[in-house]
C-alpha cells in the first residue's frame, strides 16, 4: 500500500491492493499461489503462480522402466491415483497393442468409478468448506474413508495405490469384496441425500454459487477446460462416452450437463456424477465376467518405436498421456502428461475477474484442482 519513498502528494490515493493468496493459504488446496490485484474486495486481476509442487514426474519417467512409471502416476493426482494408473497403463497397452482381458477391464471400471466418487467427495468437502459449510467436509470425509478402506483391502494402500499393471491388474478381488462395494453403494446413495439437504436447497449456498464464475461452452472449450467444469457449461464431452476405454462401452450411464456454466452448475454436475458412478459400479458388479486379470504381457516390457496419445476421463477431466518410445531403451524417450487440473486452472484468472475475494476461493474449489497434477 505504501510506496518506498515518502510521498505527501495526493491525499486521497486509492491504490489497488496486491495480495498474495497462497502458497500458504487455507483454501488454495495445497500450494497454489494466486496473486490478486484488488480494488476494495473486488478482484481486478489474478495471476496464477504454480510450480511449488514440481517434482519432475515427466523427466523422471524418462529414466524409469515402463513398469516403474505406474508408481509415479500415483503421485500426479494424488487423490485419484487409480484413474491415473488406468490412464498410463492403457496408453502403454495401446502402444504395445496388448489385449486386456475382459475381467480386468471390468475391474478397472469399478476401481475408476470408486475413485471418482472418492475424488468427488474430497472436492465436495473442500468446496463446501471453502464457502464456510464445514460439516459437509467431515461428512464427505466419512464416506471417503469407506472407499479408502475398500482400496486398502484391494491393494493395501490408501492413497497411492499402484493398483494397475500394464496388461491388467496385479491381483484379483479379495473374497467378499464385491459385497462390500455394493453395500457401500447403498450407503452412499443415502448420504448423497444428506449432502444435498445441507447444500443444494440452501439459500446461502445458492447465493454463493449461482451466477459466480459464469463461462459459456465456447469459451470453456477455447480455454481447454474438460471434465465437470466443461460439462457444467453445457458441452457434452466425456471421454468415457466419446472414446470409450476399458469396459465403458458396455456400461449404460448418462452424462450430466449444466446450463448456465456457473459454480452451481459445476456443483450439480458433480453431484449427478456421484449417482452415475454408483449406477456404473452396480452394472459392472453385475456383469463382471470370469477369467484372467492379466493379459499376455512379455516379461520385458519394451514397446516398439513410435508415439501414442491416449486419454481417459479422470474425475477432474481429460487426463491424457503422450508417450514416445524409441524402441531401444528400457524407458520412454519422451513422457508427457496432459493434466486436467492444469488446463482447468487456466480458466481461473478469467473466472475470478470482477468477483470478490470470497468468490475466488469458491471458484478454486469449483474447478477442483489438485496441485500434484498441475505441477507434476
Amino acid at each position, binding site marked *: 500500500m505504501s510506496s518506498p519513498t515518502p510521498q505527501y502528494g495526493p491525499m486521497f490515493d486509492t491504490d489497488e491492493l496486491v495480495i498474495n493468496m497462497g502458497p500458504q493459504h487455507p483454501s488454495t488446496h495445497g500450494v497454489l499461489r494466486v496473486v490478486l490485484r484488488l480494488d476494495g474486495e473486488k478482484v481486478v486481476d489474478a495471476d496464477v503462480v504454480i510450480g511449488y509442487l514440481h517434482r519432475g514426474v515427466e523427466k523422471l519417467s524418462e529414466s524409469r522402466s515402463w513398469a516403474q512409471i505406474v508408481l509415479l502416476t500415483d503421485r500426479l493426482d494424488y487423490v485419484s491415483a487409480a484413474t491415473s494408473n488406468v490412464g498410463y497403463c492403457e496408453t502403454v497397452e495401446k502402444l504395445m497393442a496388448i489385449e486386456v482381458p475382459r475381467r480386468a477391464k471390468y475391474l478397472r471400471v469399478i476401481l475408476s468409478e470408486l475413485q471418482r466418487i472418492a475424488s468427488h467427495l474430497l472436492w465436495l468437502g473442500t468446496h463446501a468448506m471453502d464457502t*464456510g459449510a464445514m460439516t459437509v467436509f467431515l461428512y464427505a470425509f466419512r464416506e471417503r474413508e469407506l472407499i479408502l478402506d475398500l482400496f486398502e483391502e484391494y491393494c493395501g494402500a490408501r492413497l497411492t495405490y499402484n493398483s494397475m499393471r500394464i496388461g491388467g491388474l496385479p491381483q484379483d478381488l479379495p473374497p467378499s469384496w464385491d459385497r462390500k462395494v455394493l453395500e457401500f453403494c447403498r450407503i452412499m446413495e443415502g448420504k448423497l441425500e444428506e449432502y444435498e439437504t445441507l447444500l443444494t436447497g440452501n439459500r446461502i449456498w445458492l447465493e454463493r454459487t449461482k451466477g459466480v464464475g459464469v463461462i459459456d461452452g465456447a469459451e470453456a472449450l477455447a480455454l481447454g477446460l474438460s471434465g465437470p467444469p466443461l460439462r457444467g457449461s453445457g458441452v457434452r464431452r466425456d471421454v468415457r462416452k466419446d472414446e470409450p476405454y476399458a469396459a465403458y462401452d458396455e456400461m449404460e450411464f448418462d452424462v450430466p450437463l449444466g446450463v448456465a456454466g456457473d459454480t452451481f452448475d459445476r456443483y450439480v454436475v458433480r453431484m449427478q456424477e456421484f449417482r452415475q458412478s454408483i449406477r456404473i459400479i452396480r452394472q459392472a458388479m453385475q456383469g463382471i465376467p470370469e477369467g484372467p486379470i492379466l493379459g499376455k504381457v512379455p516379461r520385458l516390457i519394451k514397446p516398439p518405436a513410435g508415439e501414442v496419445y491416449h486419454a481417459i476421463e479422470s474425475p477432474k477431466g481429460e487426463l491424457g498421456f503422450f508417450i514416445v518410445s524409441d524402441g531401444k531403451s528400457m524407458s520412454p524417450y519422451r513422457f508427457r502428461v496432459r493434466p486436467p487440473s492444469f488446463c482447468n486452472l487456466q480458466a481461473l484468472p478469467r473466472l475470478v475477474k470482477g468477483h470478490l475475494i470470497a468468490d475466488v476461493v469458491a471458484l478454486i474449489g469449483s474447478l477442483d484442482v489438485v496441485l500434484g497434477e498441475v505441477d507434476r
Partner: protein
Amino acid sequence: MVELVLIPLLKIIVVLNATLLGVTYMVLLERKVIAWAQSRLGPMRVGPYGVLQPVADAMKLMLKEDITPARADKWVFTLAPILSMVPALVVYAVIPFGDQVHLFGRQISLYITDINVGLLYVVSVTSVGVYGIILAGYSSNSKWPLLASLRASAQLISYEIAITLTLVSVVLMSGTLSMVGIVTSQASQGVWYAFIQPTAFIIFFIGGLAETNRAPFDLPEAEQELTGGFHTEYSGMRFALFFLAEYANIIVVSSVATTLFLGGWLRPFPNVEFLSFLGVVPGWCWFLLKSFVFLYLFIWVRATLPRYRYDQLMRLGWKVLIPLAIANLILTAIVKVALA
C-alpha cells in the same frame, strides 16, 4: 460500607469469574456440539470426555510466545485486544441474572447494578468493541487483517442499526430502558416479548449472529478467505483475548436476548397458575437455561450453514433487516397508540 462497596465488589468478582469460566467452557461446548454434529467425538484427551480441555487451552495460550510483527504499530497492537475484551466484560454489569435471593440474612439482587438506561448502556458499550477489530487490522501492518478489519467495521456498524431498531420496539412495549424493568414488565404483562415481537426477536437473533462475527456472518475471520481474519498476526495471550472476547460477546447477546425476549429469569408462562410448581426452580436457573438455548442455537447454526459473501451480507443488512426493523417499529408504535 458493606452495602456500598463490599457487596458490589463481591458481585463483580463472582460475575467476572463466572463469565470467564463460562466463556472457556463455551469454547469446549462449541467444539463438542460441532463434533457431534459432524459425527466426531471432539476433545477427549484432557480429563474425562475432555472436560479439562479449557484449562489445557488456557495454559497453552499463556505459555505461547507472544509475537509482535516487526513493523507493527506496537502500542495499538497491544491496545486492540484489550479494547475488544473490556467492553465484552463491562456489559455484564447490567445483565440481570435473577431476581433477589436471601443470603446470610441479606436481600441480595442477582445483578451488579440496575441503571435506568441499562439497555442503552449495553448497546453503547458493545459499540466500542468494534475498535478492537479495526485497530487490530490496522496495527498488524499486514494485508489480510486490514481487509478483515474493513469488512468487520462495515458489518458491525450496519447490523448495529438493525439490532438497535429492534431494541426500540421492545422498549416501546416495556416503557423502560432498565433491564430489570423490562423483565418485570414482561411479568406484569404476562407474556414474553418473543411472542408479541416475533419479527424483532428474529431480527435480533440474526443481527446478533452478525454482531458477534458468527457463522454464517463470520466474514471478518473467514479462515478460508482471509487466512485468519483480523487476528492473523496475533499469537499467545493477545490472541486469546480476541478469542475470549468473541465468546464473551456471544454470551452477552444470548443474555440480552433472554432478558428482552424470553422473560429473563421468569419461569415459562409466568401468569399461569397451575404451572406454579415450575417456580421451584430458582430464577437464575431459568435464566441460564434460556441463555443456553441461545448458545446452542449459535453453535448449531455454525455447524449447518455456509458463509455469506460480503456484498450479500450488506444487502441482507441494509435492504432486508433494517427496513423490516423500521416497519416493525412503526407497526408496534401504531398498535401501542391504538390500544392505549
